[in-house]
């Protein structure tokens, strides 16, 4: 991950209409709180996304139900999960269809708020598949590379929210080391 990747990533998300908030892990809960609609369900960080998230200062706000029933999921406006990886050149986030429910929580909702560590950004698609290959072979992981909201043009015009989320919000947890770099959008982070 470099500052250039972060800048590219933010630029691609802007093109996709995906909102971004960026800040240190300590501000994760506040950023998620600001981004999530109500009611919100989620998967605890670390059970969703990289294991290391469990030990980081990042957390979810209390109002996010992290042990939802299927009824909670059905009623939820927002689903909050972590992503394992981000692909800068495409603005994609890698969501793992894990046993903790990252896939349904990110899918059966109107808005998906996704927490991604800046350190997990890779420059391009080939890097993402280099990461995925060993994990597919050794751990049989199931990963969805999600780029922007669900979309269709089948009904005579482009519409977001065909089956999946209508909107996506990325909460980017900045590295302490890199915190000096700016991240305001496509122009930031040179």
């Amino acid at each position, binding site marked *: 991950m470099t500052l250039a990747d972060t800048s590219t990533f933010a630029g691609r998300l802007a093109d996709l209409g995906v909102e971004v908030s960026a800040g240190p892990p300590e501000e994760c809960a506040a950023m998620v709180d600001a981004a999530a609609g109500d009611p919100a369900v989620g998967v605890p960080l670390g059970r969703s996304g990289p294991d290391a998230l469990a030990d980081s200062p990042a957390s979810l706000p209390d109002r996010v139900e992290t042990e939802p*029933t299927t009824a909670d999921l059905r009623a939820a406006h927002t689903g909050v999960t972590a992503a394992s990886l981000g692909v800068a050149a495409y603005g994609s986030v890698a969501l793992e269809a894990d046993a903790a429910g990252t896939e349904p929580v990110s899918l059966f909702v109107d808005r998906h708020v996704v927490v991604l560590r800046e350190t997990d950004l890779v420059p391009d698609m080939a890097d993402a598949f280099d990461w*995925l290959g060993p994990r597919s*072979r050794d751990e049989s992981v199931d990963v969805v590379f999600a780029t922007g909201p669900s979309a269709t043009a089948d*009904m005579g015009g482009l519409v977001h929210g065909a089956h999946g989320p209508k909107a996506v919000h990325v909460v980017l947890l900045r590295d302490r080391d890199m915190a000096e770099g700016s991240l305001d959008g496509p122009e930031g982070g040179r």
Partner: protein
Amino acid sequence: MSSDAEPGSGGAEATSGLDREGKADRIRELLATEGDAVAANTRGFNEGRYESTGRLDDYEALKEEARSIKEDAIERLPDLIDEVRETVEANGGTVYLADDAADANRYIREVAAERGAERAVKSKSMTSEEIEVNDALAADGVDVVETDLGEWVLQLADEEPSHIVAPAIHKSREGIAELFAERFDPDDPPETAEELTMFARERLGELVEDADLGMTGANFVAADSGTMLLVTSEGNARKTVTATDTHVAVAGVEKLVPTVEEFSPFVELIGRSGTGQDVTSYISTLTPPVDSPVPDFDDDGEPLADGTGDDREFHLVLIDNGRMAMRDDEELKETLYCIRCSACSNACGNFQSVGGHAFGGETYSGGIATGWEAGIEGLDVASEFNDLCTGCSRCVPACPVGIDIPWINTAVRDRINRGEADPSQLDWAFEELVPDEEPGGLDLATRLVGNYATLAKWGHRTAPIANRLADAGPVRAVAERVAGIDRRRDLPEFANESLVEWFEARGGPAVPAAEATREAVVYPDTATNYVDVERGKATVRALEALGVHVRVPALPGSGRPPLSQGMVATAEAAAEDVYAGLAPHVDAGRDVVVVEPSDLATFRREYERFLPPDSHERLADASYDVMEYVFGLLESGGDPAALRAPAGGTGPVASGKRIAYHPHCQARTIGVGEYATAVFERLGYDVRVSETECCGMAGSFGYKSEYYELSMDVGEPLREQFGDTDRVVVAPGTSCTEQLDALLGAAPTHPIEVVAPRE
């Protein structure tokens, strides 16, 4: 195919067995009913492709990588099948290798029965349409629901897909609104795209909650891990897999690639090539059975994830259905590299006008469909729509895995010619005019076009009579009835003096070899030699003005017309004759300058298949498009003042400075279309270049009575772009010239005629 579609209600049958008039009627109907929606969508996708691939720094390298992965995978296919069986089974899934559609359906029905499935939800999959699994499951009482919005619309309307990626592009928003209103009679009928989408989302969401079985296709499957990749945008495939505990994935055996890492170039190319999206919303890379908990919508008070893990089943059904035989078939094998991106459909002039309901078979549509349908269904199905590939070749650079789609169409056409030949037809009357290498009984229209070089020679020898006859009403009526040549087209008028005769009569080369900068042979292609001699003369004048020692020897036709008719043996014989005629010149260090772009394209592309590799390479390297050659001469110090600059001054005279240029389709494919623009600009002309892939004439295609109206429709964007222009319209292709004349009411000239010095 939708679940309740009747077998055989596909587009192919609609034109099956129809005579020329019937075919023309069918095309006319599609142009009127679906043409506008198909055109707007496919042309939008095609523009998107140019934009999206243009954003890639390494587009060509990615294509080459994708191509070599496919070549390797198909080569090792039997091993990969063994490997994926091991990996999927190690993951806890099952692999079933089905010989054919019936075998696959039997297996899937058993899985559904064992799981007691009452409803199956499906995400879009062409392979599942190929085997018609919906019908098979419905026969067992399983309610099969297509969850892709476009597929669902077609299922409700009981219609067939018109496009392999966007199946309902032939339907308008208004048409979908009417359909929903009629089927569901809602209190507040949805009308806008947003309302229609939300209506479908809600309906389908309920159906997904109650489903027992989830069916998907697979865009790629990695043998090393049993990982499958699904390219989607709506999220329905994700829901289909997540919400059901039994996942059946149906994939052709050709979808296997060795490793997960090799997914990468395809992920970057497939959306860009198809609908012009850099990447689609969701790329699911699943190594099933997936780990997600199954939401229990019936008992929804339970925790979504109780940590125990769910009992999920996964079945990978790999389909042969003719593919392993295609793998052993030299001509059809390349079809297996196809990743079903739809680029060849969207880039195709004919497809843009009529869509997959005319340009398609039982399942697949567009240029590559000829390969799929010939391999899976048979030649008879391929023959129903194979004519619609005109060989314009605009799909070739569009294809992300570099499949020579026109060649597959040519090779299949050759088989159709040979397989359907009726030996009872009396060919003796025409033998002198059609001295080809083809079987007796081949359709007369095909043979006449295929032997155009001989016809033109005969027409030139008897020019006054031939031309008068060609214009005579009764003769045209017979030509239309017997040979299918549309009366609304002007026929080429043969010259009294051929280019070769003119060159001899003037005393041969005007620039002595000793004083020349270079030596060149102008190839007297059939059209330039016998019909449009002026552009040949202009070529000689331009080259000589730039100090080139020019010769115009008598040489045979290139074989392009027979090639267009699938007369491969005849074209191959022509290639050998042309090479024999040109080789001494190439040996002597002379360049070969070609006026007609389709002939140059034949030298460079198809001759590779007909000549020994060294011979092909020598000829291809020595041959130039005339404007490419002029550009090269100017670049290496030729004096632009020797050529004709635009007229000075203002007013009508100055309009000669402004050019509207339609590059030839095949010239663009071989990368020589832009030299005319470069030369014009160098000389001070102002050039506007057409944005149309192909003019629609495509050699002889537009002359055929059943395709006249389609051909004119394909040319419509050119009329829109150049119809009112005060620019001088130029086009290097002979058939483009005829088409532009018909569209614009004035015949364009060849670019060389604009820049060559006056006589």
